[in-house]
Every structure is written in C-alpha cells, then in structure tokens.
C-alpha cells in the first residue's frame, strides 16, 4: 500500500513539473471559406494558398504573440463550391462547430450572402473578396472586402480601353448568370454609359456550360467592337475567345477580373490570345512580387495563376499584423486595427487603404494598385498603372 502511495505521488509530481515547465502555444483557429473545386477553383485555391503561406510564416517564427500568450494558427478550410448552399454550410460549421472568430474568404458572392447574416449576428470578422455590392453596408460592420471589385476597378479599365480604342462604339458584356456575374455587368454598363455608350447586349450563361458556340454565334451577330467579360473564370473566357477568333471576330476582348494569362494562352493559342486586355492587381516585375513568386513556385510548383494568391497572402499578413498590433483577439478591435493601421503595412501588392463610404455607406472597402495589362506574344505586359 505504501509503495502505491509513493508511486502515485511521484507520477503526480512528474506531471506537474513537466507540464509546468513546458510553455505550450495555444491554438488560434482561423476559418477559410473558398471555392476549392470546379471552374472557380483557380481563384478559390488562391485564397487558401495565400492564407497558408502567411500562416506558415507566422507559425515558423513561433506563432502570434498576444497579451503574453503565443498562438499557433490552425487554418480550417471548407469548399463552398461557389454556391450559397455551400457557403451557408461552411459558415455554420466554422462558427458553431469549429468556434472560429475570423474567416478568410469567400470569393463567391452567393456564398458570402448565404452566411453573412449569421457572421454579423455572431460578430465574426470576415475578410472576403466577394464582388456583390450587397457585401458591404453600415449594417454589416464585421465584413471587410480586402480587394477592389469591379465597382472600383472596372471604370478605370473601361476609361483606359476607350481612350486606347476611341473608335469603339459597340460593346457587349458576357458574364455567368449568378450574383457575381450580374454585379460585374451592372458596373460595366455604368462605366460604358459614362462615355455615352449603351451596351449593345448583356449576355449571361449558366456556370458549367462548356459549349459556347450558340452564345458566340449570338454575339457575333451583333458585330461588337468590344467584348467585355465580367466575373467569368479564365477557362470560360478562353473557350469563348477561341471560338470568337475561329469565327473571325476582330473585337477587343477585356476582362474585369484578374486573368490567368498562361491558361488563356494555353487554351486559345498565342495568336488568338494576342491583345487580350485585363486589369491586373500587381506588377510581376516588382521586386517584392518577384521574391514572393519565387517562394510560391518553390512551395506549390506552379506559376502564380491569378491575383488572388498574392492578394490573400497580403490580406492574411495584414490580418496577423493587425492582431499583433492590437494585442487582441477581439474581432471588432482587430477589424478597426486593420482598417486604420493598414496604410502602415506594405506587402507584395503595395500599400492598401480602406474607404468606400460614399459607395457602400461604410469604409470597409480596401483599395490598392491597379494596372492595364495585355497579352503580347503569349506573355503579360503591363501597359499602364491606372491607380
């Protein structure tokens, strides 16, 4: 009996000594909601990869240090499949099952709108890039949009295109038939109207469509000078551009979203892709971007497919910077620190600042650099810094 008492005390003491002397980092769970499969995955995976790279940098240096505690970050990612149903499910799992207080993503407007009421009610900070204008409002203080949308960027691109092509009088938009697509077309329409050009037609198609020959035939009937894609994935745009060129179209193609120009060239061929214009959010020749590109390629063994990768790398870094600056894990405090101290923070895409009150009623919209970009001889060429 005495032996057992001694053994128990010895074990208890050992446990106390060893758990007492090891400083264990706590875990901070951060949610990621994004489209991880299907045509939108080129953007959605960018959110995840961006968050992963920024998270690994923090964890590799020991974790986030907040109020004397150290936090290792654990990303919990769910695929919203670019749908409202997927977003709602992902949001509820993250908030109610995984108990996160911060969510990075999504890109899908339908997804964000499906869970946003819940995250606002629960005061969960959401760092999204959904294009819908309904994403931001004074009634939704916990949603930040980390990058410019078509509302901010498209007018800049349209202004530039119409200066470069002053004879362009007929423009047609083509977009997916969902919240993102309609939002993109609305902005295009307004931007062209400012120049006295009424859109000749607004064409929509269902996501998942692969045979675009009827749509292309329909648009060709109108003989437009400009064909403006709005919030359509690169692979869809590329299939259409290929068909347009096969049918002899000489139109100028513009894309208000960031294009994976390598994929565009691969699908359409160099000749058909020549002259394709899009708005780029970063200059690949910038030294910080070059260094990031090298790290990205080393880690993922691919070239950067779209702006979303560096954008969400930058967004996640800004978020972690804000947590340590605020020395708080309270979503409202972190949100305010991101908004008001982000001009101090510069990453791969340059400086950012928050605004948007005149458009959305709240300064929760981030602004950053923007460039007119074109495909020349199969490569991306930056033509002009528009912002």
């Amino acid at each position, binding site marked *: 009996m005495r032996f057992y008492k001694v053994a128990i005390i010895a074990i208890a003491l050992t446990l106390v000594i060893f758990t007492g002397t090891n400083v264990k980092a706590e875990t901070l769970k951060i949610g990621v909601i994004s489209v991880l499969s299907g045509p939108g995955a080129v953007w959605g995976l960018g959110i995840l990869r961006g968050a992963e790279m920024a998270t690994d940098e923090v964890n590799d240096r020991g974790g986030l240090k907040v109020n004397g505690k150290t936090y290792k970050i654990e990303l919990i990612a769910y695929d919203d499949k670019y749908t409202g149903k997927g977003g709602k499910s992902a949001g509820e799992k993250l908030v109610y099952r995984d108990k996160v207080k911060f969510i990075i993503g999504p890109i899908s407007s339908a997804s964000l709108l499906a869970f946003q009421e819940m995250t606002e009610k629960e005061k969960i900070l959401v760092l999204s890039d959904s294009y819908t204008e309904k994403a931001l409002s004074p009634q939704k203080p916990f949603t930040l949009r980390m990058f410019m949308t078509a509302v901010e960027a498209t007018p800049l691109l349209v202004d530039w295109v119409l200066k470069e092509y002053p004879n362009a009088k007929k423009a047609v938009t083509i977009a997916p038939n969902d919240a993102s697509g309609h939002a993109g077309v609305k902005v295009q329409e307004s931007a062209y109207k400012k120049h006295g050009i009424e859109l000749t037609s607004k064409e929509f198609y269902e996501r998942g469509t692969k045979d675009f020959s009827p749509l292309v035939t329909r648009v060709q009937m109108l003989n437009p000078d400009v064909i403006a894609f709005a919030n359509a994935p690169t692979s869809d745009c590329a299939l259409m551009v290929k068909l347009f060129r096969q049918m*002899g179209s000489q139109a100028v193609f513009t894309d208000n979203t960031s294009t994976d120009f390598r994929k565009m060239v691969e699908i359409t061929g160099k000749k058909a892709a020549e002259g394709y214009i899009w708005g780029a959010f970063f200059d690949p020749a910038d030294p910080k971007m070059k260094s990031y590109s090298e790290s990205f390629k080393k880690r993922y063994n691919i070239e950067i497919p779209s702006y979303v990768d560096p954008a969400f790398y930058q967004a996640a870094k800004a978020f972690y910077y804000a947590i340590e600056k605020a020395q708080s894990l309270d979503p409202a405090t972190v949100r305010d620190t991101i908004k008001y101290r982000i001009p101090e923070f510069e990453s791969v895409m340059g400086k950012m600042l928050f605004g948007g009150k005149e458009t959305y009623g709240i300064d929760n919209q981030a602004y950053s650099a923007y460039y007119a970009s074109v495909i020349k001889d199969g490569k991306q060429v930056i033509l002009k810094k528009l912002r």
Partner: protein
Amino acid sequence: MTTIVIQTLINGLILGSFYVLLAAGLSLIFSIMGVVNFAHGALLMLGAFCSYVFITKLGLNFFLCLLISVGVMVILGFIIQKIIFNPLKGNELNMMVISLGLAIVLENSAVIIWGPDDRVFPFFELGVLKISNVFLPIDRLLILLSAIVLIVGLYILIQKTKIGLAIRAVAQDLDAATLQGINSNTISPFSFGIGCGLAAAAGTLVSPLFLVSPYMGTLPMVKAFVVIVLGGLGSIIGAVIGGIILGLMESLVATFFGAVFQNAISFLILIIVLVLKPEGLFGEK
C-alpha cells in the same frame, strides 16, 4: 439571317452528336439493366482522363488514345457490371442508388488524383472551314463525323452480328433469352462495357473543345437523361433522334433567345415529354 440560321443548325448538330454518343450508351445500358446508370457522366469523365493520361504521359496520337481509352472503358465497364450491378439484379432501386454512389466516388477520386482545375487537352490546330460566312471549326466537325462512325458501328454490332442479336434478346426478355442458351452473365456486362466505351468516346472527342475536369460529366449526364426520356428509354434509335433534337433545340434557343435558356429548354422538353408522351418518341408504352 440565313447564314446565322445555318450556323446555328450546324452548332446544334455538333452538340447533338455529342449527346447522341452519350445517350446511346446510356440507352443500351438501360435496355439491359432496366435502370438509368447515373454514373454514366462520371464514366465519360474517366474515359476523357484515360485519353488525357495517354496523350500527355505517353505522347500517343489522339486517335490511338481514343481507341485505347474506349477499349479500357469497355473492360472496366464489364468489370463494374459484374462486380457491382450484377449482384443486385432485379433490384432496380438499389442499382440506381449504387450508380449515384459510383458517380460520386469516381468524381471525388478524380479530384484527388488530378485536382479540381480544368486541364487543357493537347490537340493539333486543325483550322476552320469557311463556307459562305458559315464557320466550321474542323475540331468540332470531327465530333460529328466520329459520332456518325461510332453510331453506325453500334448499329452494325446490334443489328447485324450474333452478339448484337444476343444483346437484343436479353434486352427484350431475359428469361426467354436464357432459355435459348444465351449467357446473360456475359452479355449483360459486355453491353454495359459497350455503353461505357461510348461514354469514353464522347468524353475523349469533346476534351479538346471543352477541357478535361473531374466535373465535366455532370451536366452532360443530365442532358443524356433528357435525351433518353425524349427518345424513349432503351431505344437506341430514340437516343439518336432525341440527341439531335435536343442539340438543335438548345442551339436555336440559346442563339436567338440567350444562352441562359440553353439548359432551361432541356428541362422544358423533359417536362413536356413526361406529361404528353412519357414513353418517349420511340419507346414502348
């Protein structure tokens, strides 16, 4: 306007020929098993990826890839029918559920192996034929021509060969066919394999045009289902006529009313057929 109409009809014929290939295989499988194989779209995808692997990893010629992919899928279809569906013979509901499960397993496996992104299928630049302002991309014409060859081949197999006679017998009356000495345990898997081979052919032929992805078979599966309902469940002639009708209707509606209606017209046709003539154009009442 005439040019546009002709262009639209040609677009519709090409699209329809893709539906014909897919629906003919689905119809053949239905005639043998008595259930709609909801994994047919996933099998199309698998056939496409087979060809994709052969062409990118082994550098084989496109047509050789097509033949090999069809052969592989015929064998795989034979095995799937033997192992998965045959034990459930007579239990149509379970077979349907299993086929749905198989579709999900195949799609998710493809995502794990190849990732979710669209992949570009390497293909030669064939150019465009222009006949009086009507544009005929040669890679698209290839689908139409290949579909004609494959459907004629299927017709000859089914109508002019002993094995085709056996397939028809089993489709018509399994018990009577067995009494006549036809081994349904070989004929049924073989027919399923042919159906899978046709799906693989359809997948391979459209891959250079539509890209290859784990989800490439989802929407075509739905369209193939509409075609076999329109044409008549189990009728290959019905699948041919139904496929052409659907392709033409989609092309006409999308061109003259907007691409948003392209899928809607398919389901409208489905509703109309089920209400007015549920057996389809060539099905039995």
